């Protein structure tokens, strides 16, 4: 069920994302560089819609999210470092992971290479990076 739902959602978003040039880091970048709000509006629309839709789903009886407990300091630091890295490198790479998927599908070979690295990165993280982190940070997890 989850597989079919995500496949359908992916096709819809891929289509809309190609037509609208949607990017989740491009909004902040464009606003800073040329005060262009086009992509920033998409980013805000996503956040606000999800923020409204979560309680709406709970109201119709679907399982809700949370409550979220306080995270430990190490998790918070790692989340902040990871988030900063995603923002910084995505900006250098000229687009968030979603935008790179869309670009790869419209024939951009650089983005296809990005995706190859993206998929390899998942294996690298779980096979080497995460175990190494766990050894360096025994208190984590």
């Amino acid at each position, binding site marked *: 069920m989850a*597989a079919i739902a995500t496949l359908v959602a992916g096709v819809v978003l*891929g289509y809309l994302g*190609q037509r609208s040039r949607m990017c989740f880091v491009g909004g*902040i970048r464009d606003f800073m560089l040329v005060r262009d709000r086009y992509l920033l509006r998409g980013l805000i629309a*996503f956040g606000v819609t999800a923020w409204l*839709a979560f309680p709406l789903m709970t109201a119709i009886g679907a399982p809700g999210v949370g409550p979220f407990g306080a995270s430990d300091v190490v998790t918070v630091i790692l989340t902040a470092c990871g988030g900063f890295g995603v*923002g910084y490198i995505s900006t250098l790479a000229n687009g968030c*992971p979603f935008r790179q998927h869309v670009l790869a599908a419209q024939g951009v070979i650089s983005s296809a290479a990005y995706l190859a690295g993206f998929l390899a990165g998942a294996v690298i993280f779980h096979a080497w990076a995460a175990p190494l982190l766990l050894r360096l940070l025994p208190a984590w997890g």
Partner: protein
Amino acid sequence: MATVVDSIAPSRSVRRRVRITATMTGIVGGLLAVIAGALFDVRPPDAYGLCMACHARDLVDWTINAAAGTQLTVAPASLVFPVLTPIGVLLGALMAARTSGEFRWQQPEHPLKTFLYGILVMNCALLAGGCSIRLLLRTSAGEPAGMIGFGALAAGVIVATQWLRWRTTR
């Protein structure tokens, strides 16, 4: 031929075509992300309905686990069968690019450089527990760690943009 005709007098098909904006994509994306998590079992963890990094990780790790019998990490939502978001996005974007005539082979940057960017972004995203989309989704769900992650992401974009601007004006 079509473009020549369109440029002379916009045909009915051009006028009727609705322009899809980023705002529309954002609204549909936000809705689909929440609905996938709430109604279609794309959970646990919470706020997992849409993520390009985690879902790609699930797909790759699940496939390698199935093929090679390894024990790479997969989110509980993808234990039985993996989520297929990345494949969906690629298919949808390919359809849009083909029907609009925007599909074109091109190579603006060196593939090795972007390959390394891909590795780094995936590692940072898995460290943070989500790509830019899921960090925003977790923020909307009200998760404190997600908010910190999204704040850090915005800071990263701002610092990188300043760096790019400084480099070009130097």
